[in-house]
């Protein structure tokens, strides 16, 4: 199915979760924060949060800033 991640459309398997998506993207869950359809998702909920066709995800991490 198609979802939008950080502004780009991505092909992912159906029946996936945020946890599995991060794994697939080689992103350490402890190092990122995720917004799922504009709602922040807590780290503990990554696994059970399933992603549906057309969902929008924002995955962010910390960088240097003043």
């Amino acid at each position, binding site marked *: 199915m198609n979802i939008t991640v950080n502004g780009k459309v991505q092909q992912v398997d159906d029946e996936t979760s945020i946890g599995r998506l991060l794994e697939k993207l080689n*992103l350490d869950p402890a190092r990122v924060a995720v917004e799922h359809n504009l709602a922040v998702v807590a780290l503990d909920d990554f696994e059970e949060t399933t992603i549906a066709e057309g969902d929008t995800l924002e995955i962010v*991490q910390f*960088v240097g800033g003043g």
Partner: protein
Amino acid sequence: MDKLKIADREFTSRLMVGTGKFPSNAAMVAAMEQSGCEIVTVALRRVDIDNPEDSMLSHIDRSRYLLLPNTSGARDAEEAVRLARLARAAGCDPWVKLEVTPDPYYLLPDPIETLKAAEILVRDGFTVLPYINADPILAKRLQEIGTATVMPLGSPIGTNKGVRTREQIAIIIEQATVPVVVDAGLGAPSHAAEAMEMGADAVLVNTAFAVARDPGAMGAAFKKGVEAGREAFLAGLGEQKDKAEASSPLTGFLRKEES
């Protein structure tokens, strides 16, 4: 002992360090360490899915430094609130340096959106440190709605021009019921010392470290500058005079005493 108290936390250092624009993580860490800071600001950005870099967090000892996420990049209240919540979800304490800067050239804060975002975040349980123009009335309204500090700018970010908003900062300090943290534009220890001598409670510095030939040594220099200014404020500075005053007795040498 002279402590800085923000919300329910006490700090010994009155110098906060921004982590942006450093030539290397080593330079960043050197500045942090030598500055003696206890609070460091960080920003949030989208992960580049295609080639993710490793996180700079791995270089920051979080048992030693309080991570203060900022909302840089937010152009309105709603974006700022989303960023603050993402930072909290990412495991930070619910503290946020609130920045709303619609204009990408001078990066000056928007007073309306900043107040709006502050109201939401305070209700949401955040400890809010808002970055603002040197506007005494806005500072007053922010402290009234419960922000933990106000952070007026000395001069536009990254200009190193020092405290060019002296008149307004002095009024903000006079009226403040929360700590006043002078942020932005402090390019030299003398600038930081000047802010502290005026009675500011703390300062935040980033560019001056990042562009220094030796960021670590510059961190040490600012540490002393901030302490110098604070100690002078507490020791009671003299006033400026228009007439000179002899520092040696004026009784004439080799001539009759003068009246």
